């Protein structure tokens, strides 16, 4: 029997989050079961019910966690830059700190 994955959105400004899965003989029944299992107490304003087979799963480690160094893509790099700028500015003259970095 096909498996369906269910995503739920709880409020207008919210996002869809994966909540779980279910088994159903048809898409029509999957929709019913999704409501009963994942919005039984009116938690959802939107559900996505997706046949599991429609999902492209990616778990390849080398693809997702490439072995080569990529620290230039990490956010920390920018923090270092911010700290360096602050140091430079402090060296150049006092009083204006924070104006640009805030």
């Amino acid at each position, binding site marked *: *029997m096909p498996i369906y994955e269910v995503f739920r959105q709880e409020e207008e400004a919210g996002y869809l989050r994966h909540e779980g899965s*279910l*088994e*159903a*003989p*048809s898409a*029509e*029944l999957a929709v*019913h*079961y999704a409501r*009963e*299992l994942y919005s*039984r107490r009116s938690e959802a304003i939107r559900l996505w019910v997706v046949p599991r087979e429609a999902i492209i799963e990616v778990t390849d480690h080398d693809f997702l966690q490439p072995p080569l160094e990529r620290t230039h893509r990490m956010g920390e790099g920018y923090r270092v830059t911010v700290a360096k700028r602050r140091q430079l500015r402090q060296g150049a003259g006092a009083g204006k700190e924070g104006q640009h970095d805030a």
Partner: protein
Amino acid sequence: MTPDVQEALCRYLLTLADDELVIGLRDAEWTGIAPMVEEDVAFSSLAQDEIGHARLCYTLAAELTGRDPDHLAYLRPKAAYYHARVLEERATIMYDPEGKHSGKVQWAKAITRRFLYDLFDNLRLEALLASSYEPLANAMRKVYSEERYHLWHGEAWWKTLATSSTIAREHLETALTALWPGILGFFEDAPGEDTLQSEGIIAARTAHLLTPWLERAQSYFTQYQLSLPAQKVGENWQVTIEPLTGGRVGQHGAGWDELYEEMTMVRRLEPEGTW
């Protein structure tokens, strides 16, 4: 409202409520034993909805008569319940603590009865949406919006039983053969429906829902090459099976003996108790 109109309305509301309560209780027996856990939750939830609709109708009847809805639901004499008889039949195994269980699991029967009842119930509700009795029209509009989803669930199962395998289809056909007289028994008038119709409280008498029901059911039958026990001759339908009637005047069978005993058991322990 004159006393005879009030009496007819009260009887009609009880009939409606009893149908919903009885199918709700019977279907609730599937909790824990439906074919899949997902369906278990879904079917039990539909059963709860029906009990909720029953409560709404008992409350309307209670407002008319100044009685308590719980008394109407659980403390009337056994012959003062007016549901269609097929609804009281058990479709699950009767559990016996000593191990002498009886009956068998008849999922196709439960789901088929449910779907064909919902088709009927939808037509009946449509005849109440514009009722001149405002509280009834308001309540039934809410019920109607929930019942749409019941029908949708039933349609999905109808298709599954009719097409998924030879065995499923056999189960469906066997269930239909057994259920027909009882299904046709839905269309028995409650006493006083002619009065209610002339007052504009109901748009159609229950007996007059048979033709539109057959028209609506026909598409579900022909779609999957299933046969109806009725033929259209010109504009009229000729039904070839004798309906099982009597429910609307309080005549019931063994299924009711058992269900009445069970559903009133706790309430009778402490009739005036607060729960």
